[in-house]
């Protein structure tokens, strides 16, 4: 079935046509290697540095504090492993939240196997971390605190500024994975006390294959990739200029449009949330009612399973996602939903709907029209439905 209504913008976004246009010359005209001395190489280098400046400005950083990587996963791996490696003489304790993206969870697990100690902070039922818990968890040997800015699954926004303040006081590096929030809600690395920040291009209408890591000046970190010394020696690899130019263009657009766009999305999101909860009995919202991303709605329906809902909606041309085990490779439900206190069988019935730049009210109305009969049909088959 051809997708007619895309409501999975948290998974990835289409490239904005303006971004595509900006990238185009860098594939076969300005295709030089940024390390080459001749003019073609230097104009690629110029495009790279201009992009860096645009993105640095967007979050209140200095250009030299931004390095480009290939994905948010890479940036996050670099933070955990690179900070651990460069600071292990100071201590071997790292604090993360229990609702991080798998690339943080798995990197932390790997570091554990290498002798590092990991504390995973609990969240409340809305998926929020209490800053006081961060304070309590910091020890003498803590070298890094890493907390996701906004949850990729339930959209909950964390009190980053407060957590950052505590880390600053305690002299511990503070990293936030901003893959979902970057370009959607305001970020300033200075006022929010952030030392390291990851973000990715393809979540904000840029191409896949470009991401960034903000590293505050003075932060000690080791590279994952050794080689030609690109990106201040922190990420050797031939620079992916077209993707980075696209990333910068996407940021430029977000910078101009974010305020208005987030207001528009919040209106649509709230219409979606109240519509679903009103129309479907035994339905619930996952995540925080207000402290959530403008484009994220995450529901839970009793007596039904997520993958079945996703495929039913796909048949109608609607793309959404679920945290159900049945849809995952591991056959385990989302660790984020479980961390918020849901039982496994409750987590199975989750549905994530994420809106974006091309989402219209008409699409939301259509979704609200077709979802109730789908849930009803699946409940009719389910043994857990309420019998009269």
């Amino acid at each position, binding site marked *: 079935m051809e997708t007619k209504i895309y409501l999975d913008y948290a998974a990835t976004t289409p490239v904005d046509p303006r971004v595509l246009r900006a990238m185009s010359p860098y594939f076969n005209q300005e295709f030089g290697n940024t390390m080459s001395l001749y003019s073609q190489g230097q104009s690629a280098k110029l495009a790279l540095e201009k992009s860096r400046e645009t993105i640095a400005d967007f979050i209140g950083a200095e250009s030299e504090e931004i390095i480009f990587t290939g994905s948010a996963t890479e940036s996050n791996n670099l933070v955990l492993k690179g900070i651990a490696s460069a600071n292990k003489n100071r201590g071997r304790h790292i604090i993360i939240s229990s609702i991080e993206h798998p690339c943080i969870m798995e990197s932390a697990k790997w570091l554990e196997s290498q002798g590092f100690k990991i504390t995973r902070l609990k969240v409340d039922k809305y998926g929020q971390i209490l800053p006081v818990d961060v304070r309590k968890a910091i020890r003498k040997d803590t070298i890094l605190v890493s907390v996701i800015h906004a949850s990729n699954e339930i959209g909950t926004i964390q009190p980053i500024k407060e957590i950052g303040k505590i880390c600053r006081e305690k002299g511990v590096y503070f990293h936030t994975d901003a893959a979902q929030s970057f370009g959607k809600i305001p970020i300033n690395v200075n006022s929010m006390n952030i030392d390291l920040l990851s973000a990715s291009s393809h979540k904000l209408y840029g191409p896949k294959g470009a991401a960034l890591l903000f590293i505050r000046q003075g932060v000690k970190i080791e590279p994952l990739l050794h080689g030609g010394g690109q990106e201040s020696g922190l990420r050797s690899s031939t620079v992916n200029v077209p993707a980075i130019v696209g990333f910068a263009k996407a940021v430029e657009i977000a910078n101009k449009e974010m305020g208005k766009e987030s207001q528009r999305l919040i209106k649509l999101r709230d219409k979606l949330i109240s519509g679903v909860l009103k129309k479907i009995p035994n339905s619930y919202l996952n995540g925080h009612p207000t402290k959530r991303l403008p484009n994220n709605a995450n529901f839970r329906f009793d007596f*039904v399973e997520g993958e079945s809902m996703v495929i039913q909606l*796909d*048949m109608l041309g609607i793309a959404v996602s679920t945290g*159900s085990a*049945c849809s995952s490779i591991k056959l385990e439900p989302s660790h984020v939903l479980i961390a918020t206190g849901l039982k*496994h069988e409750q987590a199975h019935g989750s549905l994530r709907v994420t809106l974006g730049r091309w989402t219209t009210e008409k699409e939301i109305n259509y979704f609200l029209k077709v979802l109730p009969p789908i849930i009803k049909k699946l409940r009719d*088959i*389910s043994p857990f439905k309420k019998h009269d």
Partner: protein
Amino acid sequence: MIKKASRMGPYTKKVVECFNNPKNYGRIKNPDGVGKVGNPVCGDVMWLYIKVGKNKKGQEIIKDIKFETFGCVAAIATSTILTQLAKGKTLTEARNIDKQKIIKSLGGLPPIKIHCSVLAASALNKAIDDYESRKRKK
């Protein structure tokens, strides 16, 4: 041109058809046997109801069969196909419906979903067990 995926998710056409147009779902009033399998924690639960009758040769057969399933596409599709395979079969034949038969009838299942076919086969065996133990008690 990029070819569109011909399958729905990881599933064959037959699986999707059995999922989208489920047959024989619901409850049987006063069933002769019930088989409940699965665990809501894992995400797949199947309840199977059977009514037993006799064929012309006097053999006991599955006269009617219905299911209630909580689970993914594969769980619902295997439930449908199981009831279709079992209806009208003698109890011995019904017991012989195993995961291979179910998977074959569905044109295949993704490896990670094979357990759904195992679940369906064991639900039917459990329902027949239940029928036979009730009969002994009579």
